[in-house]
């Protein structure tokens, strides 16, 4: 197993009576992309702010690169890059100056910094917009500038806090590809998002937070395996007789059969080739059927299963 880059133990953060982070535990290993998921108010951003020593916390221990993280731990901070949820740039400086300014907070050598800034601009596709002020940039370009400011100094650990909010599919794709490249180049990444498909595509491991706690931890496949529903089969069935429905429910691994309009929905809790078994049964019984589709569970299903479907703030 790779070296631990981050270790958070028993982290507790309270705002008065409200417990924002409740004995949270997290380990992040060198070279992985960790997806940190959770509904609004689950404590993700608070945890990140504690991790970065921006927020005081009530209890717990945070270690980064094996050292205790403290506000004055500049040697650790120099190896971290943060891409904030909200765009954090200086409006009066142009694109190049913004990246140079924030990169300059980490890199003193002028020549090296110039090289890093050029690389960051090229990496985020902003080379042609060097002289543009942030107000002249589109939402997608602004997000890319936000990323360039956070990663120009080539950090070993990068934290992305919902970097693709309000970004068009092209920009989003470019951002995700960029993160993958940074990871291939050796950076460890923590990625928070509400877009499950992004997390599924990007992250090697996923942690789900709710009510300040670590409620699930594993790869996307491992998390999906925790669901009872592993496959949903939908069949257009003109004759929905009681005996046919009974027969379907008796197929191995089928745990639920229900009528949904013209279709019958069959839910399976595991097994292989469930669709073949269902279609074989209908053929054997001479039951006519129309269109057939099958759905495997998504990360979204896992998320809703774990965190519930009720609306959050």
């Amino acid at each position: 197993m790779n070296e631990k880059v981050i270790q958070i133990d028993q982290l507790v953060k309270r705002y008065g009576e409200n417990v924002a982070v409740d004995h949270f535990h997290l380990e992040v290993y060198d070279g992985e992309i960790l997806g940190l998921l959770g509904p609004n108010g689950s404590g993700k951003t608070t945890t990140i702010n504690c991790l970065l020593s921006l927020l005081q916390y009530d209890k717990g221990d945070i270690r980064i690169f094996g050292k205790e993280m403290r506000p004055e731990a500049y040697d650790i901070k120099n190896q971290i890059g943060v891409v904030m949820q909200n765009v954090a740039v200086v409006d009066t400086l142009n694109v190049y100056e913004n990246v140079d300014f924030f990169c300059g907070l980490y890199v003193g050598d002028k020549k090296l910094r110039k090289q890093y800034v050029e690389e960051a601009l090229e990496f985020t596709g902003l080379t042609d917009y060097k002289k543009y002020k942030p107000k002249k940039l589109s939402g997608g370009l602004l997000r890319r500038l936000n990323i360039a400011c956070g990663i120009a100094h080539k950090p070993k650990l990068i934290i992305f806090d919902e970097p693709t909010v309000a970004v068009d599919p092209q920009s989003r794709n470019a951002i995700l590809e960029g993160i993958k490249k940074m990871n291939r180049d050796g950076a460890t990444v923590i990625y928070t998002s509400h877009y499950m498909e992004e997390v599924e595509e990007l992250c090697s491991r996923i942690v789900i937070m709710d009510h300040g706690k670590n409620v699930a931890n594993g790869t996307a496949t491992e998390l999906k395996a925790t669901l009872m529903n592993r496959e949903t089969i939908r069949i257009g069935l003109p004759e929905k007789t009681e005996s046919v429905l009974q027969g379907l429910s008796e197929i191995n691994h089928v745990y639920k059969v229900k009528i949904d309009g013209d279709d019958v929905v069959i839910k399976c809790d595991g097994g292989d080739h469930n669709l073949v078994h269902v279609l074989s049964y209908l053929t054997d019984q001479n039951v006519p059927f129309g269109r057939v589709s099958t759905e495997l569970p998504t990360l979204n299903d896992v998320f809703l299963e774990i965190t519930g479907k009720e609306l959050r703030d």
Partner: protein
Amino acid sequence: MFGRIFYYKIKELMRSYWLIGWNFLFPLVLATAFYLGFGRMMTDDPEFFHTIPVGYIVSEDVTEENAAFLDVLAELTKEREDDVAVLKTTEYDDREAAIAAMNANRISGIYIIGADIETIVAKNSISASTLNQIVRTYENHATTLINIAKDHPESLQKAMDLLSEENTYIKEHTFQRETSAYMQYFYALLAMTALFSSWISTVILEGICANKSESGKRFEVSGAGKLSSIGAGLLAGLLLQCLSNTVVICYIEYVLKLSFGMPIWCVMLVTTLGSGVGISVGCLMGSLIKNPALLVVVPLAFSMVCSFFSGLMWGNIKQILEYHCPIVNRINPAALVTDCLYIRSTYGATPMYYQNLVILAAITVGAMLLSSLILRRRNYVSL
């Protein structure tokens, strides 16, 4: 690191419309408005003194007593301590030539010295009053001496010595260089300009502190030291404020041609200290205030209220405060700046002048120390 932050903060501030508007243009506009409002009053101000050109004619019937008036005129054409002579005299042979010179505005009046001393002035003005006053004073002295000579000849020498010591001609016209009483409005304007730097401080802190902005969060998660970064930002702010002060000072002195009555570097020293107070008090405000709207409103209100109490809008307010609540004038930085400028231009570098400079410096140091104690807290209870 310090240098880079300083460099970028200068760039950032120089491109801010609000800074250019409030700290550079607004004082210039206000100075122009004051000049248009007070301009004529300032040049006619009895304290705004210029050497008066005067012509004189010595008639054939001049008496022995009045011939002594020529010595008085000679005395008044000598430069005083402030390098300004009261009169510049020209002798004319005849009345017509002198009147022609007066009509051509080459001289402000004419003395015709004969059996009596006749004064002719072109129009009612401060210069005319001065010329008349000189003759009245001379005649009073002459009459006094004649009477003493008649009644107490033994005391004549003593009386002459006393009158000579009194030096009434000069004392009656003790002009403090070329400074007008209306300059206090311009001093208050400079104080206001200097205190506008408080606004710069809050903006600098907004960009550096994580509890104030997103870019502040980016700043605080970086490897840059917080207090040194703030120091670099505030230094950039102070430098720009000093530049703004210089622009306003030069505009008043060289464009509006209103003399401060002291060397420019003295004015800049006082306004720099005033700006130091603005920067440090602004830093203290910025360290205490979290609401972004208040970060603008509070320093603006601070500058305006202090300036109001220093006489920016109403010249008498400072005297009223001095009578009813003098402590306000002792701690109001705008009043301290205007007092410093007034004292320096009127009385020179007196102990009171230095005392005010020390109070300004003490406020700056005190506010900076308090701010650094608050700002050195490196993480927050909430964001």
